[in-house]
């Protein structure tokens, strides 16, 4: 589903964010990216939805080399790749329902489609009863559920989560991770960049540790401290 071949990324300021990254993530897989701040986790995620282009090597998503993907096709790639952020990135002046609908509306979905799919998605993430509320009226966990619903409403093949529990308490973090596991069980490939040791250790999924932009360790059913002795 996602393939990195000898990928390198150097930012214009000279910082080497990724070096010689070779990584294959299978269809329907659940993977944790771990490592300290500035080790390249977010940069790696951004290469998958082509927010940034690697300076060397090649990234493939769903059999398509992103190197050869014309700029006009990037929006269609992004409809296959949902993204969830630590700070939720919800539109505060829109309701929960409208935030999810927005992702459909801007991709040209019909209003019939919007009315059909938004409630289903809110049901899936467990906040259907808060549809008319605004994000600032929700708890952090509920806001993250709203953001997840928005990223899933276009039926992406892949869900990228950049520190999805970074602003949440342990109990809410566990709920969010359980939700991501359920989404993964339905077939979506999920990649989670995180510092949250407890969820990584509890879920025992594939863990890839990044260090100085390189893949230091890669382990099935791994734990947070793989490769750290």
């Amino acid at each position: 589903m996602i393939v990195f071949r000898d990928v390198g990324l150097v930012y214009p300021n000279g910082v080497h964010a990724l070096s010689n990254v070779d990584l294959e993530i299978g269809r329907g897989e659940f993977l944790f990216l771990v490592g300290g701040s500035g080790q390249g986790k977010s940069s790696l995620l951004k290469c998958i939805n082509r927010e940034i282009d690697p300076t060397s090597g090649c990234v493939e998503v769903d059999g398509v080399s992103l190197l050869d993907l014309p700029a006009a096709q990037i929006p269609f790639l992004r409809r296959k790749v949902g993204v969830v952020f630590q700070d939720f990135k919800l539109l505060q002046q829109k309701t929960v329902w409208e935030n999810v609908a927005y992702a459909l509306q801007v991709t040209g979905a019909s209003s019939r489609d919007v009315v059909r799919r938004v409630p289903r998605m809110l049901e899936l993430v467990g906040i259907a009863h808060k549809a008319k509320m605004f994000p600032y009226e929700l708890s952090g966990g509920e806001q993250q559920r709203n953001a997840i619903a928005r990223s899933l409403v276009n039926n992406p093949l892949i869900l990228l989560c950049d520190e999805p529990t970074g602003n949440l308490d342990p109990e809410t973090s566990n709920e969010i991770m359980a939700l991501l596991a359920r989404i993964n069980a339905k077939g979506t490939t999920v990649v989670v960049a995180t510092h949250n040791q407890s969820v990584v250790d509890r879920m025992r999924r594939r863990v890839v540790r990044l260090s100085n932009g390189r893949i230091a360790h890669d382990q099935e059913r791994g734990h947070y401290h793989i490769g750290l002795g």
Partner: protein
Amino acid sequence: MGASRTTKSEDITTLDWGKVRFFWAEVAQNFTRNLTMALTAIGTVAVSVVLLGTILFFHDSFELFMKQVVGQVTIAAYLKDKSPQSAIDGTMRVMKSDPRVDTVTFISKKQAMDALRNRLRGQMNLDVINTNPLPDALVVHPIDPADAASIATRLRGLPTVANVTYRSEVTEKLLRIESVLGAVGFGIVALLLAATALLIYNTIRLTVFARSREIRIMQLVGATRWTVRWPFVFEGILTGLTGALIGIGLLDAAFHAFAPKIAIDLPFLPFNFTVVPVGTIAIELLATGAVVGMLASMLSVSRYLRAS
């Protein structure tokens, strides 16, 4: 998962009221996000349109006056005495076939004398003159008064023509005034339009920055560049159109208030307000407002999208 899964809505191309409502809500949101700036831009467009309309109005009026005055330019070619009729016919044929020439009229010496007698009747008795000293002549009307000099030169080169006269100085002075006024007017209009475009550009730029969070989300969920652009482009068009409409309203009020007074109080001014195509000017101003607004906003949002 996989092949059965579709990322595109099945009826993605269907236009429905929900989509239309969503689109206009986005445009309205753009407008209200920077209301002060949007109103300033509309006001500037209105002022530019008032000035542009005034210039266009006086330009058109002056041009019509010029056509009336300069259009009377005639070239008189006096023929050599005793030129045979066949040679005169030949000269007429040559001038009639000239693409710059509108009409060629032959005035015989007798017709010229009769005309002179009529003109001087009661002032001078020409009956005392036994002979007719006036030559045969051709009166040539150019299609474009600007060609009068070159047609005169051509006539001078013809064997039957003795002398050529036309009101060259007056014609050329008027044409020169028209071209200078035209160039100055065009320069002022170009500067005004550039200033207006710059203001709309900056207004849209502020809206774009104010909505950068939405734009980022749009891009992340897979909105195409045109989906992002359209609401801003429409905002630009609406700004231009609204400003132009206000400007036209002001011009209309001013026209009805001042035009009759100018025509009566300052009759020596070379303007003819009654025949100016006011409707055409209004359409030109509306189109200018819309096009300037559209181009400025497209430039503004495209520049932002390229940078992001």
